[in-house]
Structures are given as C-alpha cells and as structure tokens.
C-alpha cells in the first residue's frame, strides 16, 4: 500500500477558490479576487507537480478512497481517485495550462464587469475538470463531465446581456445533453452487465472477454454509446455545431475550455476506456471514420472564415478529429500526445488571438487587421511559434504528435493517412492565411475604426494597435516555449513508452514498426504538405491578395456552401429544432398544456363557481324565503315518506 498523496486536494482547492470568490467576491477588490483565484488554482498546480515528483515511487495504478457515496444492493459507488500515467499527463496539462490562462485572464478581463464572477467560474471549471480527470469510477467522471459542461455554459454566456452569447451558451449545453444521453446509457449498460462503475472492476471484468469481431455485441454498444458522449463533448461530427458558437465567450475561456482542456475530455474518456474499445473493432472503426471526417470537414470550413476566433474554433474541431483518428486506430498514446501538444499550441493561439483582439480594440474580423507585427512584436513572435507548431513544421511540437498519428494511421489504413495529410495541408494553409492576414501587409483597421466606434469593445480606444501588458505576455511566452519543445518528449517513442503501462502492449501489437524508409517518406510527405500550404497562403494572402476573390468567384456555389459551413446549422434547424419548437408550441403548449391541463383546472374552478352562484340564490337574507325553503323541505320529506308508505 503506497502512502496517501491526498489527491482529493487537487480538485478541492479550486472548488474552495470558486466558493470564496463566488460567495464573497462581490465585496472584494480586484486584487483580492485575483489573489484568491490564482492561489487556489496555483495550489492545484503545485499539488500536481508534487504528485509528479512522487510518481516514480508509486505502485501504479494508484487509487485513493475518499468516502462512500451510495450503495444500492450490491452496487456500490465511492468517491475515489485513480492515478496512472494517463491521469498524470492530463493532470499536468490541465493544471499547468489552466494556471497560465488564469494569469492571462487577469490582464485580459481587468476592465470587464463581473470580474469576480469570471474567476469564480474559471475555478469552478478547474474543479470539475480535475474531478473528471482524477475520477476512480465512471459516475464520478460523469460528475466532472457534466460539471465542465455547466462551467462551459456559464462562461460562454458570460456576457449574458448579449443575446448571441446567451443563446450560444444554451446551444452548447443542449447539444452536449445529446452526447451525455449516450454516455449515460453506456453507464447503465455497464451497471447492468458488470455491476460496477469502478474503473478497476470494470476493466478486470472486460479484459477476459474476447474481441467482438462481427455484429453488434455488448462491448460494441457500450463503446459506441461512449463515443456518442465523446462526440458531444469533443465536438465531433455530428455534434460539433456548438463549438464555433462557443466563441461568444471571453477569449481566455475559448483557450482554456474550448481548446486546451474540456473539449479533450472525450479523447481522454475514449483513451481511459480503451480496454472496451480494443474489444470492439467495429466501434473503433466508427471512431476513426468520425475523427477523420471531422478533421477534414472542419478544416475546409476553417479556410473561409474571417473571424479570427472562428478559424481557431474550426481548427480545434479539426485537431480533435485527429485525436479521434488516433484513438480509432488504437494509437491511444499518439492521441494523448497530440492532446497535450494541442493544449499548448492551441491554448497559445487563442491567447495570442486574444492579445491581437485586445490590441486592435475588440475587432475580431481579420479583414480589419493586417500589418500588426510591427505594433505587437511579442504577440507576433509567440503566435508564429504556435502557427508553426499547428502546421506541423519541424521541430515544433505539432510536428511530432501529428506525425505520430499519421504514421499510425498509415499502418492501419492508408485512406486515413491520405485524408490526414490532406487535412494537414489545409490546416497549414488556413493557419498561415490567418498569420498573413493578421500580421503582414498594411493595417486595414484604421479607416473603419471611427465608424465602428459605437460597436467598440471596452478595451483600449482607437489609437494605434498596442501591445498587451506583461501579465498577458508572460503566459504567452511560457506556452510558446512549450509549443516549441513540447513535442520533443515524443522523440524515440518516449512518450508512448511512458504511457505503455496504461494502454498495454495490446495497442501496439497489431502493427509492427514501420520500416525506416517508409517512415522517412511519410515525414517528408507531411512536411511537404505543410510547406505547400504555407506557400499557397503566402501566394494568396501576401503576394497576390486579389487572387482569393477570383478563386472564390470561380468556385461560386461550392465556395458559398463552405462559407456557410455547409449549411449544417440550417439543416439541423430545419430537421430538429423547428419540428421540436413547432411540435412543442402546437401540440404540447397549445394542445396539451392549454387544452388539457389548464382547461381541466379552469373548468373545475368555473364549475364550482356556477354551482355556488346557484346555491347562493337561496341565501337571500329574506326571512320568509327561508321559511319557504323549510316548508318546501318539510313537504318534500313528508311526500317521500307517504310515497314510501304507499309503496
């Protein structure tokens, strides 16, 4: 028995911070709010570092029991924590990136109203995310799962007086509910067939089971339902529609929740349940196909977007698709590796984009930017690192993780690899497009700035674009360093080796190592794809800025379709939302609620009133009419008795 590390402290600290800021923050000064939020979030980070330091001396997987939750017959659920290599990676990413984003938010949100509320929500999010990551059973994971959804909803709708932000929050919440429905049913199936939700018990029950090669067995069903949940949380086809709208939230939120941590929960959950997925190859194929399609599909939409955060949102969906592609070909460690590097560079991209938005006074449209590199050199430098990283340029972090996924995809099925490389090319193209449109050329924002005066964000004014304060730049620099070197932990399969005890040899047994020459060829092709995308973006958005318009007009209808995101939102609105709203209005509201329930209550009341009205007439206050009633009553009784007597 290894000593207790008090793992419960890791989620409990941010929860305490959220409680303090949430209940008393209104009376605190901004400095106090910041001190509380950073102290508790930083405390969690330090705890995570402590766990990492003690990690080598632990007997893995390390579990800690906190308390009984409930018991129903033989079914027992505890509050318990589960620590293995996968947990450790997630723990460090979540607390580390989360802490940096907390620091950044201090600068970004300083001018905003509801400052304490923002930090209370951020800390609350950290609590739920850490609960999800550290959970020792599926139900506890589900608490975290739902909780991060709640925090996401609160933060997307942070500017709740803005209608679009409020409805974006609702959309995220409702779409996630669909996924959670799948997750819940998977949990019910687990309870029914294995009688437990505890990871160790479920996994030890699953491992002796054979592989379900054909048909639609129990494990396949569970795996597919889990995937439905993952698709909702991690914004995969067909449930990705909420993530682009979630950009209505403050930019640090987009960085923390909708890029670095929460949206990767689905990948984590699939990786955590890999023993189930390994035994359900059909479900794995579904995961791989969904991931591959999402990667390509979202990347193409990313090309046409002009809102800097929307480009990054579609990019996030696309990169999550890569992670699912990796999980789908049973390369879980590659997926987690990409999850980690993605957390670095996509968190950085969002934070740098926030710094850009900050610099130009709240403008998010890239057509109003340009030439910013001389105004905001630090932001430019860090964003460049992130852009190179996501485009997969050697030796930045994204290169190593993406290449690992592509290599594994190639082993599984060259079709996945081909789509993956195509996506890598598109990714490189739209990221360098963003880069050129934002930082190069001439600044295009000045002339429209005065017209847009009324619409301006509260940051800054309309002086020249200005660099962000140090409190925002330092997290950018740290993340830039991580985006640069973060991939090196994967060189020589070290990262995979570290995670091997979790995913076992089973994950790697299917494929023998690629020959060296094939590997080199694959790397060369993906580097070429990235370079080609870069060159194309350079050509179209720096050298010949007139060309994109021409190409768009040549493509005509197809371009419009992509510009309108393939009309998916409209399709969902027509297919699901409108029938639901109409049905609810006509049948449930007008028909059932007003027609049956309200009518029953109202008619009962009306009936009572009518009867009472009639009965009231007897009580006239006239003495002789009372006497008349008495006489009539007496006469009636006598008549009855006589009638009975005669009979």
């Amino acid at each position, binding site marked *: 028995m290894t000593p207790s590390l008090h793992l419960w402290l890791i989620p409990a600290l941010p929860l305490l911070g959220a409680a303090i800021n949430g209940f008393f923050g209104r009376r605190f000064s901004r400095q106090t709010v910041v001190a509380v939020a950073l102290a508790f979030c930083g405390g969690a980070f330090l705890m995570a570092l402590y766990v990492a330091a003690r990690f080598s001396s632990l007997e893995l997987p390390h579990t800690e029991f906190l308390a009984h939750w409930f018991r129903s017959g033989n079914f027992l659920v505890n509050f318990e924590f589960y620590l293995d290599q996968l947990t450790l990676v997630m723990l460090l990413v979540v607390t580390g990136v989360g802490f940096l984003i907390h620091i950044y938010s201090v600068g970004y949100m300083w001018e905003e109203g509801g400052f304490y509320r923002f930090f209370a929500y951020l800390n609350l999010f950290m609590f739920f995310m850490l609960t999800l990551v550290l959970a020792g059973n599926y139900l506890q994971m589900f608490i975290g799962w739902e909780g991060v959804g709640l925090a996401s909803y609160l933060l997307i709708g942070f500017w709740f007086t803005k209608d679009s932000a409020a409805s974006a929050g609702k959309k995220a919440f409702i779409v996630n509910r669909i996924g959670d429905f799948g997750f819940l049913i998977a949990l019910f199936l687990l309870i029914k067939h294995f009688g437990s939700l505890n990871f160790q018990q479920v996994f030890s029950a699953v491992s002796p089971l054979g592989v379900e090669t054909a048909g639609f067995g129990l494990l396949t069903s569970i795996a597919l339902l889990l995937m439905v949940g993952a698709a909702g949380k991690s914004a995969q086809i067909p449930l990705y529609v909420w993530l682009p709208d979630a950009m209505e939230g403050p930019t640090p939120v987009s960085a923390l929740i909708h890029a670095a941590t929460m949206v990767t929960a689905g990948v984590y959950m699939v990786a955590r349940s890999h023993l189930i997925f390994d035994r359900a190859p059909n479900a794995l194929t579904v995961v791989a196909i969904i991931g591959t399609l999402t990667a390509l599909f979202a990347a193409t939409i990313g090309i046409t977007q002009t809102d800097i955060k929307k480009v990054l949102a579609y990019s996030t969906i696309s990169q999550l698709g890569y992670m699912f592609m990796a999980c789908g070909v049973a390369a879980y460690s590659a997926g987690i590796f990409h999850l980690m590097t993605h957390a670095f560079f996509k968190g950085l991209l969002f934070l740098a984009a926030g710094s850009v938005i900050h610099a130009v006074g709240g403008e998010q449209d890239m057509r109003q930017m340009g030439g910013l590199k001389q105004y905001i050199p630090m932001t430019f430098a860090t964003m460049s690192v992130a852009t190179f990283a996501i485009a997969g340029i050697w030796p930045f972090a994204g290169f190593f993780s993406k290449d690992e996924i592509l290599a594994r995809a190639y082993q599984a099925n060259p079709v996945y690899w081909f789509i993956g490389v195509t996506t890598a090319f598109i990714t490189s193209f739209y990221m360098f497009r963003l880069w050129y449109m934002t930082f190069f050329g001439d600044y295009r924002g000045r002339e429209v700035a005065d017209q847009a005066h009324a619409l301006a964000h509260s940051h800054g004014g309309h002086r020249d674009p200005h660099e962000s304060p140090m409190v925002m730049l330092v997290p950018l620099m740290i993340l830039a360093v991580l985006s640069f070197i973060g991939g090196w932990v994967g060189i020589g399969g070290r990262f995979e080796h570290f995670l091997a005890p979790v995913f076992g040899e089973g994950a790697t047994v299917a494929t023998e190592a690629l020959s060296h020459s094939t590997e080199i060829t694959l790397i060369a092709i993906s580097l070429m794809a990235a370079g080609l995308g870069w060159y194309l973006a350079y050509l179209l958005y720096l050298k010949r800025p007139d060309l994109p318009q021409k190409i768009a007009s040549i493509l005509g209808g197809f371009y419009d379709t992509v510009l309108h995101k393939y009309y998916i939102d409209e399709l969902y609105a027509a297919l699901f939302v409108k029938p639901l709203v109409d049905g609810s209005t006509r049948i449930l509201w007008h028909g059932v609620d007003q027609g049956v329930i309200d009518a029953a209550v109202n008619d009962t009341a009306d009936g009572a009133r009518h009867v009472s009205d009639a009965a009231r007439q007897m009580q006239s*206050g*006239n*003495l*002789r009419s009372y*006497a*008349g009633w008495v*006489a009539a009553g007496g006469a009636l009784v006598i008549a009855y008795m006589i009638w009975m007597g005669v009979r």
Partner: protein
Amino acid sequence: MVPVSYYLILSGILFACGVIGFLIKRNLITIFMSIELMLNGVNLSFVAFAAQWHHLSGQIFVFFVMVVAAAETAVGLAIIIAVFRTRETLNVDQVNLLKL
C-alpha cells in the same frame, strides 16, 4: 264516533293555513298568529291520536305545547311592542337588521 282521519285532515288544513299565512303575510302580528295556528293544528292531531289510542301522553304533550306557546306569546308580544316602538312599523321586510 267521528273517525280520526277527519281530525287529521282538519289538523293538516289548520297547519297549512298557518304555513301559508307565515309565508305570505308581512305584518308581524299576523305572522305571530300564524305560528299559533300551526301549533294548534299540531295540538289537534295530538289529542286526536290520544283519543284514538286511549293514551294520556298525547294530551300531556298538548299541555306542554300550550304552556310553551303561552310563554312564547308573552315574550313575542313584548318583542313586537319593542320593535314597534323603535321602528314604528310592523312590516317584517323593513325589520331585517338585528342592530339599529
């Protein structure tokens, strides 16, 4: 011997007259008299049955009714005089408040 049904019919007629007088008359004294009429209608049926069954309890009951009726008359007339003094009318429709 006169059959008992004759007495009962007469008693019924008397009672009905009392009821009708009670209901349609507005003068307090007339109403009061109608009540007496009803009581006497009932008394008549009591004594008729007492004679029929040779039983004394009916006659004793009639005495009780007479005593109560006499007391009631004394009290009632006193009330009527009091009402007339304060309201200067004996129309029941105008005497519909307990308080002045």
